């Protein structure tokens, strides 16, 4: 039901590590105010943060749409970045295409996609080389 959906929209700035995590932080606060359980809040926050940071590192930013209903939280991350060459590889722990500069900052440990999968109930990645990527994640409220 549309009236039972809280919709939130965030823009993610490119190349700015200092603000990465702002969207997931804001969503975390909203979920607490709505009274969701600690477990749900944590899963959403971690999955969303990983995705947000990926958008900053690989995709020159993008935008995030969050839909909250009493049953589930859906997060759609859209970017116009380079796309993911090999999704199966990206899902492997420790696999990363982040460059040296990014790794020096402590990112690029290859845990992004595995964590997204681990913390969500549904993960759909649609990607096209040179066009961009849409990461659509859902956390169910059980």
């Amino acid at each position: 039901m549309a009236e039972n959906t809280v919709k939130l929209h965030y823009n993610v700035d490119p190349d700015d590590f200092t603000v990465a995590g702002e969207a997931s932080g804001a969503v975390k606060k909203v979920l607490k105010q709505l009274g969701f359980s600690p477990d749900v809040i944590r899963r959403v926050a971690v999955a969303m943060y990983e995705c947000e940071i990926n958008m900053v590192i690989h995709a020159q930013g993008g935008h995030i749409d969050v839909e909250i209903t009493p049953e589930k939280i859906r997060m759609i991350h859209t970017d116009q970045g380079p796309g993911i060459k090999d999704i199966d590889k990206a899902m492997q722990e420790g696999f990363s295409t982040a460059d040296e500069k990014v790794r020096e900052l402590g990112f690029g440990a290859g845990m992004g996609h595995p964590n997204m999968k681990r913390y969500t109930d549904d993960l759909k990645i649609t990607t096209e080389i040179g066009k961009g990527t849409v990461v659509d994640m859902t956390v169910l409220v059980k």
Partner: protein
Amino acid sequence: MSEKKELLYHSVRLETDFCKGCTTCMRYCPTQAIRVQNGKAKIIREKCIDCGECVRRCPYRAKKVLSDSFDALESYKHNVALVAPAFCGQFSKAVNIDVILTGLKHIGFDDVFEVARGAEVITEKTKEILASKNHDGPLISSACPAVVRLVAVRFPSLSENIIPLTSPMEVAAQMARKEAMEKTGLSDEEIGIFFISPCPAKVTAVKQPLALEKSAVSGVIAVKDVYMRLAHALQGVKEVEKLSVAGKDGIRWARSGGETEALGISNYIAVDGIHNVIKMLEELEDDKLNNIEFIEALACNSGCTGGPLNVENEFVANSRIRNLSENLVGKPIDYDGISLFWDKKVDYEPYSPLDPDINEAMRKMQLMEEIYNRLPQLDCGSCGSPNCREFAEDIVRGKAQERDCIFRLREKIEMLAKEITELSKMIDE
């Protein structure tokens, strides 16, 4: 649940007559627990963690800490002062810790006991827990009661990360009590164990412990209330008794980083200052600190020496404590029969959601967004809420009205004025 909340004890209080409604405390409160209504500050009890930031910031000294007075000693036959390591940095004239401890026996205490000894026990136990590796993610020290309360109200998923060890103060209180009973032959009720506190959070931790059924401490006296008496008495101390037994490992808990240094580990974070602590816990909540073993988090800047009830500047106190404890080596401590762990789990007690019914909460959330988008988003605080977001929330919670915003009020008056002009034109016609 609501019944429990009403019973929440707080040591931080407002002295209404002194409050000018200036909004300083409201702007600095780390948990947005203060509102200014009808020209006076008001503390939202469910949100307050007794960190004392408002006590420190209030320019009119309207924030008070409800601690025990010296008269409380009269209720007991034998009184022991529990001396926190931070206390030892308060006095410029003290050449060693024994002088301070002896001085306390001149101002009404029958005996003294160093909290640093309790800290040494906790250090030993923490080492064991860290070595056991039966835990997930970084462990958080439970030493600072304001931080423990912060986790309970704001970081639900982190309560499992807190080490369920009781505080050095509680360990020291039990040991002091046992020692006093053995020395004097008096009963439990005849012995007063008084903690001299640098902060309001410790007062609350004694009056209403979060994770214990009952505190072993009988009363809490603020450092500032002991300071003058002791400073005078120190000049009269001729024969210094050898009372200090704690070592450097316990005493350096007084400052930020001290607890962790005593653990001898390298993958740790020592964070101080409540706003910094919140930032760090946010990171931990987002799973960003995986390689960290231990987090020492203290609500006051510089650690316990930065407590709002202290007298001395925290940097001076830290330097002094370093000098006083540099060569002190602790003695083995017998803590047989002393309980070191929490009696109960710390429950998640969040400030109530927008509504108990999720559908209604979501409706209010949408309304809140709409209201927020109408607000000037200057976070000026003139409405009596700490920022525009909190103000929008207060409106949907029925605790504020949109016209409390002076910018929105001005817009409305302008509209009204226009309408009056239009109407008056119609009369002329």
